[in-house]
């Protein structure tokens, strides 16, 4: 008999060492997430995967699965909390989806749809963040960074290049490029790097691809993010 915990009244089997989110996803139960990625160690920073466990809030991506846990996932209260987190991510950056090449393939946007975010509710900060188009094959639009650190982790752990890092604290935290000039062109990054493909939003973009797949025919136009098998998500 495998061990199980309960999520929204469903028994979820798990093996020792799995997190609550990993076990749920493996069992076909969607738990919203942005900074979590199956190939990387859990990070627990975006908090979009917050669940309620035995009455207390916890990030399901870092919470070890244990026998007998009682977990709430799709409740009105948690949807509201997640909606606010997504709204805060939107107002902190500049997300003008109609001109973003990632539109339709973007996880932040897809979560907005999933959680029925129709308005941003909070006052937008409209930060001033220049783009870096110095690299011949890649472009960096800092306006859309949600500070998930997936590119940081991928560049260090998979690509072995350490191209990206986060600098500053709190509201001043931002993505930086590890070169003397601070420009992407002066790093060893390649368009084939995992750091490039792992970005869940439209920050690290390959040049010359743009709108090859028309808006309206992209990943999350076909189905909501909750209905999309994990392996099929860009």
């Amino acid at each position, binding site marked *: 008999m495998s061990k199980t915990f309960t999520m929204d009244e469903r028994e979820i089997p798990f093996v020792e060492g799995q997190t609550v989110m990993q076990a749920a996803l493996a069992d076909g139960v969607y738990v919203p997430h942005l900074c979590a990625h199956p190939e990387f160690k859990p990070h627990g920073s975006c908090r979009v995967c917050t669940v309620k466990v035995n009455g207390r809030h916890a990030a399901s991506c870092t919470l070890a699965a244990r026998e007998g846990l009682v977990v709430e996932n799709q409740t009105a209260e948690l949807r509201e909390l997640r909606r606010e987190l997504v709204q805060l991510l939107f107002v902190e950056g500049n997300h003008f989806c109609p001109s973003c090449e990632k*539109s339709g393939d973007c996880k932040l946007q897809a979560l907005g749809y999933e959680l029925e975010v129709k*308005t*941003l509710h909070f006052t937008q900060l409209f930060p001033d963040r220049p783009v870096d188009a110095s690299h011949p094959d890649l472009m960096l639009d800092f306006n859309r960074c949600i500070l998930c650190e997936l590119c940081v982790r991928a560049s260090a752990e998979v690509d072995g290049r350490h191209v990206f890092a986060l600098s500053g604290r709190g509201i001043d935290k931002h993505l930086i490029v590890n070169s003397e000039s601070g420009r992407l062109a002066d790093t060893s990054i390649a368009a084939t790097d995992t750091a490039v493909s792992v970005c869940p939003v439209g920050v690290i973009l390959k040049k010359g691809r743009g709108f090859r797949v028309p808006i309206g025919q992209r990943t999350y136009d076909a189905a909501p993010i909750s209905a999309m098998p994990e392996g099929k998500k860009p």
Partner: protein
Amino acid sequence: MSAPKRKLKVATTSLAGCFGCHMSLLDIDERILKLLELVELDRSPLTDIKHCGPCDLGLVEGGLCNAENVHVLREFRKQCKVLVAVGACAINGGLPAQRNHLDVRECLTSVYRTVPNDPELPLPLDHVHPINDVVRIDYSLPGCPPPADALWQFLTDFIAGRTPSLGHGLIHYD
């Protein structure tokens, strides 16, 4: 014989928008005939009525980029029982808000060589604002523009007295 049902009064306007949302409304195609059986248009670019009377519903396209936009928006809020932010620009400033990190004077002088100064011209605001920065909004229809089917879904739900609900494919930000 029961008295004929009163038609709902609807006003629409385009502030700092491109009229794309109004075009999307016209994209409901022949359903517009059905709509006109149920609603009567007050102030709207489609009627050319200049001021808004008391209305059941106001649809606002576009954000706020100048003082006139703010006056019109306040008139709409005063006269409309339910006010809806239609499209990206009304909801988050949209394309016009892409100037928000630039200096207005520099913007104007780089385009016109001077700051245009004519009493006919409304004063530009230093930042472009979404409309909920200035008035309370009852409902938002995202999209650039919102799909015609989203507008239709909203209108039919509203007219029938249901809480409007947009399913997958009708909430779009692009």
